[in-house]
């Protein structure tokens, strides 16, 4: 806070405040104050704490006023984009197959050949996934990383929806985008000491991570090139939740139960670790 050392009578202070209200240099002159006083007032205003709250559009509107109008378009554009993604996301094959328009009338049981739109959506969503996954790695601020992760998980859910795996997509939204992310951010908030927690790993840690990620990359590439990919015509039309549940409780009962027991052990272990301090 700047001080005016030579000013210590109340009369002068009152006049200063009055002039600050009037706030114009020539007005100050008309009141009989010199340029030095006006400069003092301006100095006080410049460094004043209340400057912290400055209008958001101030700087931008001067440079390019048309940008300001885009601000009100934001919600519309966002809503439309996301609605388009979700509406035509599941519409890839399962919804279209259920759509009496497409299947019954034309007598075509296959998916509607929505080629261009579907491809466009796929590249859009896949691109978002890649960019946001990179963002998770590149960002330094941990909360920003969590938000990038949120976008990555959400766009993976959209990819599932595009593949007509509705149940998987919805569960991905519910469990990862909703639940796990909230837990993650909650953990950051509870443990952070400063408002902007930064993530700065040691170089050795980076090396270890690079080795593991490289191995994973090699493995994934091997799996990708080694697999025989089937065309769309061989894929079952959509997955029903009932069939999924039946499979889980008959053919895949053992892995399902093992996963359940594993999660139970994790829960008990976490509770044990949390209680140990007492």
């Amino acid at each position, binding site marked *: 806070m700047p*001080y005016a050392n030579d*000013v210590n009578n109340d009369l002068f202070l009152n006049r200063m405040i009055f002039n600050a209200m009037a706030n114009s240099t020539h007005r100050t002159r008309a009141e009989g104050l010199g340029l030095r006083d006006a400069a003092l007032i301006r100095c006080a205003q410049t460094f004043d704490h209340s400057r912290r709250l400055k209008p958001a559009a101030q700087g931008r509107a001067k440079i390019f006023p048309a940008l300001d109008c885009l601000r009100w378009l934001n919600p519309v554009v966002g809503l439309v984009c996301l609605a388009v993604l979700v509406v035509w996301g599941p519409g890839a094959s399962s919804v279209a197959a259920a759509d009496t328009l497409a299947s019954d009338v034309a007598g075509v049981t296959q998916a509607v050949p929505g*080629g261009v739109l579907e491809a466009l959506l796929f590249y859009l969503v896949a691109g978002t996934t890649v960019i946001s996954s990179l963002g998770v790695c590149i960002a330094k601020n941990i909360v920003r990383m969590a938000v990038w992760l949120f976008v990555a998980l*959400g766009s993976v859910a959209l990819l599932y929806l595009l593949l007509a795996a509705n149940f998987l997509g*919805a569960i991905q939204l519910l469990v990862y985008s909703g*639940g796990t992310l909230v837990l993650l951010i909650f953990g950051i*908030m509870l443990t952070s000491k400063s408002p902007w927690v930064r993530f700065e790993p040691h170089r050795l840690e980076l090396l270890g991570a690079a080795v593991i990620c490289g191995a994973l990359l090699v493995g994934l590439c091997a799996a990708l090139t080694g697999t025989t990919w089937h065309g769309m015509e061989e894929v079952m039309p*959509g997955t029903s939740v009932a069939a999924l549940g039946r499979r889980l409780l008959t053919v895949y009962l053992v892995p399902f139960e093992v996963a359940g027991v594993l999660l139970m052990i994790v829960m008990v272990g976490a509770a044990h670790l949390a209680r140990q301090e007492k």
Partner: protein
Amino acid sequence: MTQISVPWQPTQPVRYGLLSRPIVGVAVFIYRMAAPFVRRFPGPILIGAVVGVCLIVWLHALTYAYVDARILGAASVSADPAAAISWTSPGTWGLPPSTVAALIESAGGPAAAWSSILGYLLWPLQFSLTRDLLGLGGLFGLFNLIPIYTIWWERKVAGRIQSRLGPMRVGGWHGWSQSVADGIKLILKEDLIPDGADRILFRAAPYFALVPAGLAFLALPFGAAYVFRELDVALVFILGVLGIEVVGIIMAGWASNNKWSVYGAMREACQMVSYEIPMGMALLIPVVSVGSLSLSVIGEAQSEGWFSWLVFSNPFTFVAFVAYFIASLASCKRAPFDLPEAESELVAGFHTEYSGLRWAFFFFAEYAVMFIVGGLASILFLGGWNSPFPASWGASWSDGILMQGLKGLVFNGPIWFVAKCVFFLYVQIWLRWTLPRIRIDQVLYACVQVLLPLTMLLLLGNTLWVWASMSDSPAWAGVDRIVTYGLGLIGLAFALMFPAIAAYGFYFRRRLVGNLVQDAMPGS
């Protein structure tokens, strides 16, 4: 030594966005046109609007059915298979209007006389894109109307509960356009971002709250055929997008870099961790009873009147309904679980630093989620779009257009669904102005240590009940029947008590609320 500090800013010319002036201009114009009429004829206009909306929705359904059956159906069975296939493939313009007109003419009926005009009018409806855009427009309108009028209603109800009037001036009739005026104010308000905030996250957070709330409407069925996208996992989808909404709230609280906001965000995270599992468990109970995750299927399973509603199907569902309702209050941050924005402790919680339209987005999200949560309660437990009268009563009615409309009004139609949602909105408002806020540790205790074990037991019990009902034992069928009718009668008693108590309150309103309110109340 005196410090010189000037705590205010020089006045600056107000800068509006290029779009906010016309938006406000249109709103003020509409208000000026409508206000004198609403002041004079509030009742007829209200009734007319409701009837008009019902008619428009019904007309849409009839038109779609007509196009499906008479135009697309006729085209598919016509002798020329090429004509039937061509309109599904991309790059074509579908059946040309002349063909549509010819099909309308051959279908006969009163529409045949207007076939040349109708050919052009109905031509766009053969594409699912047109239908999707129309449906999106309708849902977007509803999504905007719900917060605007629920906020006004909330203020009125709050006024009555606190022995005052609530909004009375704007628009004339009981402040009907108070929310419109608030909207204009919010559009014109300055969009402040604190210097210390994380600017990008701060600006993005309202959309993370708003957009999921809007997305949930895409899968929410308003009637058997009135659903934008029929998803086989609609319930999980809606729960998932409601979970995303919480991320927006937390992001807002964190990015504000304000201790009250962060407290609000942490409370929201804490609360979500505790309520979401009991809520999901309680919702699984009707799912187990019906055997489907599709909201349309669950709704259709309750079409046989009051006693077929899932809440009365066995004692477990009856209690699960109450458990779900409590958890759902926590999910839309309503009292007594409104800890994230506890006005009396945290200034405004997670949206302390927000102003203008961004602030309004949080409220749009909150009220839309209130509607959705009420809609889930009514579909999963209270029969959805089915009325208390069994649909089988209307089986012998004739199949003319007017009788179909009457069936929609009496047995099952979107109007019943909306009425139930509005009832749940009212209950949420009522609870907010009645119950005190509980502490965060009490929220955690209530959700994790009471509701969670309770819903787990209920799920187990309900599963056993359903399993027992699968056997063909006549004795069990009798027990089932007796329990259902007993619970149904208890529910009926509650349902009748509600208007009775309301009538009591209205009759003794002078004693209850005093002279001031009594003079301005309708009917006094």
